[in-house]
């Protein structure tokens, strides 16, 4: 179907973008924003096409319903946030590595033989408007935490002695975690309301729920560490990394290692 072709083109464009960033000084500065905008538009177009094609098949649902769709949406959220945070990305390595992250996710999602890419109908449990609110808020959160993770990693690898880059990184990190925390909370709460209407209980300590709570606690510690205890530097960078590992486990680990109510996502 058309959406598959568009997703492949989008993946290729991400690749071109990264190659240009690596080898061309011009893209690195002047044309970077516009180049990203082009790739992002294609990505958006592919998502919309997939949405429309699901109606042609008679299923009609947003592309937020299975593992493949979650991956391409995750990459979309990362690129979107990179664009929105453009002003704050005075430390371009964050932006570059975020785009590299989107590229890797797109390659995995669109080329891996182990991933089911067909548009599938929604099982009864997923037939709800809460699907849109719940999945989109969660993935905006995951993408923000990915940016925070990059800030954490780059903090450890930055050239020593330059306190200005460190403070820029910390600023981006702080912004990412703030956005991520608000959206993760929104994701958990919309999930709880949905669970109430679908399963009859807003909280049942399902592994996915529990791990999202663990992730939430880690980022709550990040926020309080900085606001109350005045933590900076290494401590916060380390927490960003730990927090994102928890995100990864919530996203992938729970699906593949633990069984539970969220089993549609595998």
């Amino acid at each position, binding site marked *: 179907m058309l959406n598959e072709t568009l997703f492949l083109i989008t993946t290729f464009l991400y690749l071109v973008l990264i190659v240009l960033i690596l080898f061309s000084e011009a893209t690195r500065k002047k044309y970077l924003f516009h180049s990203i905008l082009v790739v992002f538009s294609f990505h958006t177009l592919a998502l919309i096409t997939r949405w429309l094609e699901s109606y042609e098949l008679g299923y009609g649902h947003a592309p937020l319903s299975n593992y493949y769709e979650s991956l391409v949406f995750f990459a979309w959220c990362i690129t979107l946030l990179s664009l929105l945070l453009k002003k704050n990305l005075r430390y371009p390595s964050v932006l570059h590595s975020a785009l590299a992250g989107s590229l890797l996710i797109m390659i995995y999602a669109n080329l891996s033989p182990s991933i089911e890419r067909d548009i599938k109908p929604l099982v*009864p449990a997923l037939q709800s408007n809460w699907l849109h609110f719940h999945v989109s808020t969660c993935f905006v959160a995951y993408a923000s935490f990915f940016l925070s993770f990059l800030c954490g990693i780059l903090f450890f690898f930055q050239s020593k002695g330059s306190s200005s880059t460190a403070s820029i990184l910390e600023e981006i990190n702080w912004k990412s975690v703030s956005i991520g925390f608000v959206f993760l909370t929104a994701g958990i709460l919309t999930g709880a309301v949905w669970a109430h209407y679908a399963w009859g209980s807003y909280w049942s300590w399902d592994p996915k729920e529990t791990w999202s709570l663990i992730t939430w606690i880690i980022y709550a510690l990040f926020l309080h560490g900085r606001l109350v205890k005045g933590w900076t530097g290494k401590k916060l960078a380390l927490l960003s990394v730990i927090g994102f590992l928890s995100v990864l486990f919530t996203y992938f680990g729970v699906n593949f290692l633990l069984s539970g109510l969220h089993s549609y996502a595998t």
Partner: protein
Amino acid sequence: MSQEVTYGKKVYDFLSSVKLGISLLLIIAASSVLGTIIKQGGTPEEYVQLYTQSGYRIIKLFGLDDVFRTWWFILLLFLFALNLFTCSLKRLERDLRRNSKETIPPIENLRKMRNSLYLSGLSLESVTEELKKDYKVLIKEEDGVCLEKWGFSRYGVHFIHFSIIIILLGSLLGLLFGLRGFVSLKKGEEKSYVTLRGKNPEETKLDFLLRCKDFRVDFYADGTPKDYVTEIEILKDGEKIMEKRIRVNEPLKYEGYYFYQASYGKEATFYFEVDGRKRSITDREVFREDGLIMRVMRYEPSIHDFGPGVLVAYLQNGHPETTWFLRDVQKMRLKEIGGKKVEFIDVKEDLYTVLEVTKDPGIYIVWSGFSLLLFGLFTTFFLSPRKVYLRGDSTGTWVAVHSEKRREDSERELKKIGSRFYAQ
């Protein structure tokens, strides 16, 4: 006496410390990890097989097979709520005290502030009048005014903290006074009780009657389930009160009870003739009549080409025996068991729907906690209070803006105020 006071204060200080809060959160997170990697709610045999006998003993001792319902986990949550409450109370006190100390800086300080401008030709009163449309007046002096916008966002963090306590209270209410159970209904069946979940299943009576008008499952072309629909009627004193289609994601709510489409199953009814009299039993029942005691042990919809068959267990002179009946084989259709002539006539399979039933008096408290939490987060992270200080002199008015969280906000706010007056 004074010793007691200091002792009490020490306990209070400990209970309300940020350190305790962080430690509790870490312990709760660690216990939650255990609750997801150790199998929950398994049988003793499963635990022994997975973790050996001594491992099982430790699991049982700490309730690790049901972490989220053990007394110590609930206690942790309780302590956390207490800590959050006292800690926030302390902070609220401090915040309120600080805010009541607001003063307007003198004119020479305003002039020196980074984000200030001079509105020449405009009197203090006219500037105040204009700004009052969007700002709240905090202090009014003879030659100075302090106004504020989004002041409530300063308390965003308190909304967040208290909302968590509200959510915990709401869930406690549900835990104490709510119920969880299920009811299974065949098409046409009526019930006015719910089977409660728990180690010893009990039944609780409803003061209305549920009647299942219909139940069906729809499939997509590729065979995956599309829709489970139970059509239900609620009757009270023989009168129909309401009718509703229950689907997944569309529960029925009535008198505080929620009925959810949870699952479904098949139940077979077997038709026999015992000494020429028509009789029917389901696969859950034991048949007792005139000394014949029998029960269907197994049902096969098709045995080779001989049609449906049932394995029946019965008592022959007090000894248990089993035998197969096949509907479409003459020889195997009619048998003498337990001193009676028993003929297997037919079998009919019915779908039955299983509705999850819950009652949660805390649900609206939890929902309001959720809303407050989101509101608190939004105000804390995306809004910041802006204060405007005004001082008038003989020829005009000095305006200065101060935002507590970000300097950029002050700049932006000042620009907005400037354009407001120069556009006029």
